[in-house]
């Protein structure tokens, strides 16, 4: 068992893991941060997306060893229902989620994009989110919400 120091949603945390290959996904969920979802474990669907030092990554493909010393932001850390992040506020306003299992990944990937490109084009939003799958068909609303959150349209 080794300890790994990292910052999660603004707080310094020391987490124990039996092996450095343990995916960040399971570390976060073990801490009660269950917004981050297991979808495939293969980096194909995006449901487990978090920000690592401000960049969107698949937490199922990010070993705790790689996250050591870094800053992790999850959907819970982005904002709350009382004080939502602009992306969360837009997702609520546009009534985006159906089942909502992909919503974490949609918002976190979009947050990664907006950090790099504050005013993306619709095509940029679509192509950034191509790696985030949705089965219910909430896509149209996702794009609308991301555009609105970046202060465009909505």
């Amino acid at each position, binding site marked *: 068992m080794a300890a790994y120091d990292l910052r999660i949603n603004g707080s310094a945390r020391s987490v124990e893991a039996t092996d450095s290959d343990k995916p960040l996904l399971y570390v976060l969920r*073990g801490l009660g941060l*269950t917004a981050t979802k297991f979808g495939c474990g293969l980096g194909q669907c995006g449901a487990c997306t978090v920000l690592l030092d401000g960049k969107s990554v698949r937490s199922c493909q990010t070993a705790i060893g790689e996250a050591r010393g870094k800053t992790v932001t999850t959907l*819970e850390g982005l904002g709350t229902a009382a004080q939502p992040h602009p992306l*969360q506020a837009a*997702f609520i306003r546009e009534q985006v*989620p*159906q089942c*909502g299992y992909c919503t974490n990944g949609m918002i976190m990937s979009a947050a990664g994009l907006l950090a790099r490109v504050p005013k993306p084009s619709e095509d940029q939003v*679509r192509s950034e989110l191509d790696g985030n*799958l949705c089965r219910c068909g909430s896509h149209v609303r996702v794009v609308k919400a991301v555009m609105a959150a970046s202060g465009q349209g909505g």
Partner: protein
Amino acid sequence: MNLDPRFSRRTLLQGGALSIGFAWFGAKPDRAHAQGAAASADRTLSPEAVDAYFVIDADGSVTLYCGKVDLGQGLRIAIPQMAAEELGIGIDRISFVEGDTATTPDQGPTAGSTGIQRGGVQVRQAAATARKALIEMAAQKLNVPSAELATADGMVRPKAGGNGISFAELLAGKRFDLKLDPKAPLKDPKDYTIVGKPLPRPDVPAKSTGTHIYMQDFALPGMLHGRVIRPSSIGASLVSVDESSIKDSAGVKLIRIKDFLGLVGEDEWTVIKAMRALKCQWSAATTLPPQADVPSLMKAGPFTRDEKISGTGETSPAITADARTVKATYYWPMQSHASMGPSCAVADMRADGATVWTASQASHRLRGIVARLFSLPAEKVRVIYLDGAGCYGMNGHDDAAADAALLSRAAGRPVRVQWMREDEHGWDPKGPPQLLEISGSIDAEGRILDWRTEMWIPEATRGLPNIPLLGPGDAGIAQPMGLSTGLISQNGGPPYAAPNQSVVAHWLKDAPLRPSNLRAPGKIANCFAVESFFDELAAAIGRDPAELRLKGLSDPRGIEVLKRTIALMKWQPRPSPATERSGPIMRGRGIAYIHYKFQETYLAMGMEVAVERATGKIKVQRVACAHDCGLIVNPDGVRSQVEGCIIQTLSRAMYEEVTFDRARVTSTDWASYPILTMSEVPKIEIDLVSRPDQPPVGAGEAATAPVAAALANAVFDATGVRLRTVPFTPERVKAAIERRST
């Protein structure tokens, strides 16, 4: 935007009479709403009784207990809207409890797009019965004739004004003790103030901020994580297990019940690693047919019966000399529910009963399954619904529940099982394959002289209580055997004037993979065949397919949605295919229509596509849909469902087919079973026809049905190539274009 905390899921769930605590994953001890199997309501749960649906508390708030569940389709707001409207109380005074067998009436599975049209209508009738009773009680107390009283804001008041009396005061802690009165008068829709409003769904804020507790996030104190190692081939038996292969996995315990093999442990990741490390040997089994042979094998049988689904007119009508006769075969392959989150359940099996937490569409049905599997009286089994990743029928949720129950019973602790991605894609029950052959004749005036549909489809075994589940099968627990496919023979005939027509189903005894009901069971493939074939008839006589549809329809609601779709599409009448299709990008438009199940929603759908000649890639650019589901309870909810229907079915039509070799499913991840991605989603325009005077019918399935036909018709218009086999992959489209041009 609604951020009102009173609408949070937690509050809604806590509205019920359930309060004993348990721990969520990690540190969320305050989230509590459920307890063990022994809990049961101190009131009747008969779906015939008003008290099964409504409890009015002393403070005047109402708890609505509903057997139908919100799978992401918005019942969590729509059904309370119907109840609040009919009772005469603000919707913020209603708490909603759903899908808990200990507290909600059995209203049947949340399936077949019946949530509103049956479940909601039942709740509405219960509310109307309650309102009538409350008014009668108030009439006595106030000494005013019932006819002069009305309900509003949780009070009964004289219509003329003056003091009222609250529901809580009228009931004074008593129950209604009334049966649902089918004659209890319903509110006049013109007086509606809550139904018809696009109220926000109460779960959206928590889903958008990461605090919504899904089935996959639920945990109990002392709970173990479990994984099941499925056989290497379908039908294989377990020859040997090398326990030493997981000796380094601290605290992981192996559980074997005949061919059922599972692992449990305290830490989920450790269990997953052990699952990957475990060495075991399975017998060889090659039970599957060659995939390419499935359509021909479906025609060969064996069949349990042939059924004439519908038919009118002569068997051999006179075909006029100017008529054209067409015959075509359409095939829809097996498809997966492909839920975003692998199926999950938690079971707590004890000597005196069982509690199962599930995301199944049918908690009451699952209660019966668990009772039968483990020889428990049904009243000792409690099944509690929690939201899962979307299921669109019966996916793996019920199997995961049985897995968790088997492991919990063996381990003597509560066990959570979440499937891995390869389990979900590999082992979820599949949408069945469908083969249709249609022949017909049409005269030069566009009159359909003759129409014959034959379909070859896996049967839905009569009286089968449920699909045989995987875990119990491997564990050697006897289960009723058979197939469950849903109502897959509906919409097999033309919705247009056709005096001589018949639809015959050849019911197959077997299916290559375990089938189940997958969204709009059967209707998607049937409408694909019927509406493609109608276009083939139109093309045979050189007529515009939209005009010809209008000519064949007599139902004014059908005509309305078709005309509105034609308007949205700015449709210019001309025959298909388009005359200009020589360039590298070929463009076309298509249209399709359905009267869902011939008795529910009316809708028409138009589509514009561009097809790339060099690659065969279809780009759907625009979809327009006019949709009439009668009374609209929540227009934004309906729009959301129609969008979802269109996008999901475009994915199914363009990409999806479960692949398998002779032993097992080979499409076991998102690379081998791709679905539509963000960049490919078209512009969608929806026109909702509002008919407050009509009963509310379903919106969760109907708009899936015409998607593939509208797409195939648009591709034909663009390219002159008729696609009759799903999915319309670039390879398939390219090959068809090349065949045509050679």
